[in-house]
């Protein structure tokens, strides 16, 4: 999936100055939640499940933040002997170059917390050494054989050890990239908007143009169609930022897995309902069907009356 999702950075260089596409905001809500749970547990692992996702955060705009992230990541890795750092430097370069980079994000507050924890854990790991290896063997746990109760931190560590053991790929620092160009939005005249790379974005997202079209039009409360040049012509005036917002919501609802947020998903229609099937974690959940809902009459009423009469 890396291959087809990653855009050649060289393709993109010209676009550098374009505003980024911040899909993360869309996921921010979720991320906030997951952070609070996962951050304390983020011990010892550069690549936690949450990182395996489409974190559409660093779409551009935030170059500074990105650089910070890179810096932190290097630090993280150096504290972590078991993580092969080989792959990272390259990707970091990508991140700096690429605007529209839906790459996994190490940014923001999460980072600090995690880093602290990692250091702690590395120390602990060193001291504990081998008994941690077989986690299922209860004798490996500190509280076994004693009267005392286990602590929350110990339990967290235990579950993460198990996770790492069962999913070696998680530890190996393999990251999924999901890079998308920003929508190219141009005004046509005063009343229409062209979304020029609509078809391309559909391909990137592996979704039927019709599905995305339905969603866009329903959300924007307008009408439109794909023209001969495979660009989407929308009635009304919309800015790139606005289209991005809607796209972000689309991705959150219909592209990324609701469980693990992997973008490697299939949208299936099954008896009137759409299901999102995740190729990464196997979860399957129904997604909201697209409805325009109530549409107010905005045109010239006289014209409508003339048409219907």
């Amino acid at each position, binding site marked *: 999936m890396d291959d087809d999702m990653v855009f050649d950075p060289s393709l993109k260089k010209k676009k550098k100055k374009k505003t980024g596409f911040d899909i993360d905001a869309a996921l921010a809500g979720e991320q906030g939640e997951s952070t609070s749970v996962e951050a304390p547990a983020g011990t010892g692992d550069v690549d936690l499940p949450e990182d395996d996702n489409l974190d559409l955060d660093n779409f551009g705009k935030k170059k500074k933040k990105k650089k910070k992230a890179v810096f932190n990541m290097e630090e993280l890795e150096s504290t972590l002997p078991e993580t092969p750092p080989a792959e990272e430097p390259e990707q970091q370069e990508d991140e700096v170059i690429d605007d529209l980079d839906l790459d996994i994000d190490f940014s923001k507050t999460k980072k600090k917390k995690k880093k602290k924890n990692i250091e702690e854990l590395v120390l602990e790991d060193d001291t504990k050494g081998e008994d941690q290896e077989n986690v299922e063997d209860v004798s490996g746990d500190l509280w076994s054989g004693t009267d005392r109760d286990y602590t929350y931190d110990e339990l967290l560590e235990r579950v993460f050890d198990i996770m790492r053991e069962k999913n070696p790929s998680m530890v190996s620092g393999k990251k999924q990239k999901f890079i998308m160009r920003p929508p190219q939005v141009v005004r046509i005249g005063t009343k229409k908007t062209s979304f020029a790379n609509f078809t391309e974005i559909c391909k990137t997202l592996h979704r039927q143009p019709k599905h995305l079209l339905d969603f866009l039009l329903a*959300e924007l*409360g307008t009408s439109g169609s794909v023209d001969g040049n495979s660009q989407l012509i929308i009635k009304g*005036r919309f800015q790139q930022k*606005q289209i991005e*917002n809607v796209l972000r919501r689309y991705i959150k609802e219909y592209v990324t897995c609701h469980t693990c947020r992997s973008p490697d998903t299939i949208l299936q229609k099954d008896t009137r309902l759409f299901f999102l099937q995740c190729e990464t974690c196997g979860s399957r959940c129904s997604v909201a069907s697209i409805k325009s*809902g*109530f549409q107010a009459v*905005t045109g010239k009423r006289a014209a409508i009356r003339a048409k219907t009469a």
Partner: protein
Amino acid sequence: MSIQNLNTFDPFADAIKSSEDDVQDGLVHVRIQQRNGRKTLTTVQGLSSEYDLKKIVRACKKEFACNGTVVEHPEYGEVLQLQGDQRENICQWLTKSGLVKPEQLKVHGF
């Protein structure tokens, strides 16, 4: 008399509820539509029919200093229409007044 502790509680009740989406999905859809030029229109669909929408619109018009009306729709019931982008205003107002729970609100648009 019932002993509350023995009542079965379905932890997924709300999940089921939100997945079956019909017109009466319990959600209040707040949408925006463009009119001519820079003008926009906010619509609120799905407010319970137990509420007096006319009273709500009167209060909103005053509060947000905009015009508004109630439209009767055969499928969606009574729909509130307000001039301009009142999405934030109306969401705040509806939750503050306790008419709608925050999780019931679904805001559409750009």
